[in-house]
């Protein structure tokens, strides 16, 4: 069970431990749901490039992602919680990725695995390479590496589980959660004559505004 500190009134952790030893567990609905949700994150079977092979290796016998709850990689986005964007997202593929993201039901999470999914990676200078999937869909966890080791993917998954445990289960007005009349769909880009249209999602992509030094 998570070790979240109790709010306002309620038993302390020591008292909880004492009760637990007698077979009585005290928790909140939120903790219980988050415990269940974080320990059964089902990823989508979505590998784009080289990082996909490391993702497969993470699901194989040596690294075994199943012990973290990701027992099955679902083939259909309708049944998946997590999309691990592993590999270079090209502009030709980007509409498909966004469409898959839209088809996933809430609550859904995204891990950008590998340098290419974070920012374009070694292929950044490319006419067909999207410089990071966070231009179109919101990303929760970024895992650097080229490719990141399977252990790094497991570490990222554990961080995601921590993040899920800290989330609320009732709508909080988070723009990423559906509810309050606002859909959590991201607009799908279209193929233009020279680039995708739009080249990024203006609601999501906020590059830090760097101020350049005076030219020396």
């Amino acid at each position, binding site marked *: 069970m998570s070790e979240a500190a109790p709010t306002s009134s309620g038993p302390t952790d020591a008292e909880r431990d004492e009760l637990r030893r007698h077979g009585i567990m005290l928790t909140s609905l939120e903790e219980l749901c988050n415990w269940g949700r974080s320990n059964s994150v089902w990823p989508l079977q979505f590998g784009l*490039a080289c990082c996909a*092979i490391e993702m497969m290796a993470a699901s194989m016998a040596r690294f075994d992602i199943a012990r973290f709850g990701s027992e099955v990689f679902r083939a259909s986005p309708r049944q998946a919680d997590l999309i691990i964007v592993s590999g270079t997202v090209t502009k030709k593929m980007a509409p*498909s990725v966004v469409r898959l993201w839209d088809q996933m039901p809430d609550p859904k999470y995204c891990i950008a695995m590998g340098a290419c999914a974070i920012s374009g990676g070694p292929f950044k200078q490319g006419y*067909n390479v999207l410089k990071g999937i966070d231009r179109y869909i919101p990303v929760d966890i970024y895992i650097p590496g080229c*490719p990141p080791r399977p252990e790094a993917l497991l570490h990222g998954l554990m961080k995601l589980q921590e993040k899920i445990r800290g989330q609320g289960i009732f709508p909080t007005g988070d723009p990423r959660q559906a509810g309050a009349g606002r859909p959590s769909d991201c607009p799908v880009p279209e193929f233009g004559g020279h680039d995708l249209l739009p080249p990024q999602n203006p609601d999501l992509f906020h590059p830090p505004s760097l101020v350049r030094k005076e030219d020396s």
Partner: protein
Amino acid sequence: MSATDLPPLAPSPGPRIRAVHDEFHGDLLEVSMGPHHPSTHGVFRMNVTLDGETVMKLKPVFGYLHRNHEKIGENTSYLSSMPYTDRLDYLCSMTNNWAYALAVERLSGQAVPERAEYLRVILAELTRLLNHTCLAGFLLQDGGASGTPLMYAFREREKILDLFESLSGSRMMCNFQRFGGCRTDAPAGWLDSVRRLVDGYGKFLDEYEELLTGNEILMARTQRIGRLPAALAVSAGITGPMLRAAGVPYDLRKVEGYGFYPRFEFRVPIGADGDTYDRYMVRVLEMRESIKILQQALRGIPEGPVMDPKARLRGFRPKPGEVYSRIEGPKGEIGFYLISEGGPNPYRYRVRPPSLINLTLLEDLCLGHSIADAVVILGSIDIVLGEVDR
């Protein structure tokens, strides 16, 4: 109407469509399989037109992983392109590196010391073992054995990746070959670990084959499926195990004899029918020949430097000229075409991708078969999208 009323499936070559006599003349269904589909070959799309379950037309669509590797090659120096070659066929980085290093060495007339050549052969054959093992796993997964053969394959792959990691520092993207040899020498004890792995690999293959080769489900799913006639294979530029399964004895290790392959004794398995089962069996037999080559190379590897002392790494500017050089990678003939104008970057940098050329005949092989067979045929062609799209 029962199954026995239907005329028997004619054996290939050539597509044959079954004539089904019934009252229903339905519409043809066009399905886009991909670019996201669980056949684990990457972002590949097939637009299939189906009559029931029979494939009437199949158009492959790719480009979903086109990372403009060739354009980057024009803007990067020769050495800086070496890590990009890892990412072409991302399962077999050592052979990609060797193909590129060989091309640049032929372009600049660079010699390679003996120990480096032996090391290259050892790494290439280990890569071949890795690739063919994984292919058997992926093929079975496409056929429906979801997970278990692939788990066995990845278990062995992890052992080979441990070797690559202790040698080059990275599991997959090894970036190990240089123009004039290898980047570093094998650490102490590395060759003994390879020997241990190679000696134990035959037993693993026996275990694997016992489960798979005589397996009646595998045979029913792959025999007489996707027959490839030899003349069509040659004209379509098919190379690698797919070509040899069609009956054409063309293996670049024998034909061109690059590296030190002429020193080693090994046979080249040739298929009889050219169907999917032959493509699987040719790869299994090639694995056994690879073990033989590895044992000979490990016995004969001499001491010495792994890098030519006269090789220039910095400021490398080959003289103007061009070269096309190719090696027998695990998937087929991987070639590099380089045009040098005397500068630090190549003027034109081209990769000849075996997976792309082997896909030329995907439609021909799948016509008349069911859509489930189309998936198995695609699995037996052994493609990697990093190479198809570059």
